[in-house]
């Protein structure tokens, strides 16, 4: 990650994308979530400085942007690990041993849900239903869904991560 979340400044290409997104909505504010996704991709997380920067692009108060960022679980307010591993602990996954999978990950990673491994490699989360309950127990690894988990399968997936 080279872009600095403490001194955010989009590139001209990113700014053009912001304008394009804003133009898709009857009121440009509609593009706030897409632009926050864009910002998070650029900076890894949405710092207070990023919030303030994005607020400027929308001519809205930083407080509004902060309220939005904190409402949604997919926006990170702190740096996250290089990978995010989110294990579902909702009902169908619970019935299929989500607890065992979570316990296995706690042991293997040495951190609790909500934490990042000390080497900065993996942020480990528990999440609510990923709506892939037919493959319970389920987790999301970055963009990918991984289901029918066993401790061995979890190990293979983690070993395969760059």
């Amino acid at each position, binding site marked *: 990650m080279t872009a600095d979340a403490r001194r955010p400044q989009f590139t001209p290409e990113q700014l053009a994308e912001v304008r394009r997104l804003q133009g898709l909505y*009857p009121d440009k504010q509609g593009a706030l979530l*897409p632009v926050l996704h864009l910002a998070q991709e650029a900076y890894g997380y949405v710092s207070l400085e990023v919030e303030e920067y994005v607020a400027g692009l929308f001519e809205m108060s930083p407080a509004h942007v902060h309220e939005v960022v904190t409402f949604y679980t997919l926006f990170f307010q702190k740096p996250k690990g290089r990978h995010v591993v989110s294990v579902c*602990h909702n*009902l*169908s996954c*619970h019935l299929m041993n989500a607890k065992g999978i979570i316990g296995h990950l706690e042991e293997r990673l040495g951190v609790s849900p909500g934490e990042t491994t000390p080497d900065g490699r993996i942020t480990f989360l528990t999440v609510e239903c990923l*709506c*892939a309950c037919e493959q319970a127990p389920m987790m999301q690894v970055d*963009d990918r869904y991984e289901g029918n988990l066993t401790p061995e399968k979890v190990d293979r997936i983690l070993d395969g991560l760059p």
Partner: protein
Amino acid sequence: MSENKTSEKIFTRNFHLADSHTLRLYRETGGYTALPKALRMEPAAITEEVKKANLRGLGGAAFPTGVKWGFIPKGSTEPKYLVVNADEGEPGTFKDRYLMERDPHALIEGMVIAARAIGSHTGFVYIRGEYVKPWRVLDGAVKEAYAAGLLGQNIQGSGFDFDIVLHRGAGAYICGEETGLLSSLEGKKGWPKIKPPFPAIKGAFGHPTIVNNVETIMAVPHIINRGAAWFAGLGTKSQGGTRLYSVSGHVVVPGVVEAPVSVTLRQLIYDRCGGIRGGKKLKAVVPGGSSAAILTPDEIDIQMDVEGPKSKGSMIGSAGIIVMDETVSIPEALMVVARFYAHESCGQCTPCRESTGWIYKMSRRIIEGKGRKEDLDTILDVAKRGAGTTICAFYDGAVGPYISYIEKFRSEFEDLIMRSAHA
């Protein structure tokens, strides 16, 4: 029920084909033939056809779709919006994911037809943020449709213009609730809004808006192609068509099952999903996503239309069926469900915010062996008092499981609490 009727496949007919998401395959299998037909119809005639088909919303509330479309003010020159609810978040439900990944063009075709019916020129698809693959597939399909002149200006020379914007959510169950979804689409936190005004009068960005579920919209091209009578005839008196049932938990073959809404819950569990795993006994089943009241094994001979689960005090909801075998601890299941509602309450209404948190704490302490004798009655009392007092149906959804788990499996909770008292 005739054999023919049970085997009728509409939504899933191409699911087994590797290229089912492509424009080429969709066309080869009869796709985009409803569109030119609909573009020649009067908008009101499209709505009328959908009404006659007895299509009910498949996202949760089961409101008649054609009737909803009819609420758009006539003759208004304001912009109107069509919003597809692809925020799928109801625990136990996963059908919209399959639909978007495997048949995205049916959604696009359905959206153009629905837009024409309500006079909308812009449609938004609100997709949950976690659904990266469905979003990419749908994005690819939208681009294909633009390139083929199926979206954009003057579609197929009809003079009708329609654009689709894909909008990614960012992780919040409450954004599945239609007014919460609209708040989120407008670039705010996903707080539901008081109704009325209903979205059809004052919706997205303050303009008339129809919000429909992915599956609901995907039924539309089939209705236009094969007629309202055919669609209505597949179903029951209360509801037409087939629908997708998401089945998870302790069945031999979990997955998405398409069946006419006249199918029974027993047939879905035992005939379509292979029965209970490991030869175990059924203990309980949730018929319509985690917000639906739980049913016992003697309550599964019900048709899975809007009326069946209702007759047992539950609801069909999103048709997410969660099956539990005899080894399941119902108090633990309640704790998991209560944790979900406590986590996902948007916090706007006091009864919802406070009760979901309190009930989660009580359910957790019962599991942790610190339950108190009065806890069960307190949960029931708190749950019932808050019901019907909140801005949106989220809290009523939470109350369904709270009350039914305890009322139907009370002795199991009492055993746990008794043991705590003697520990």
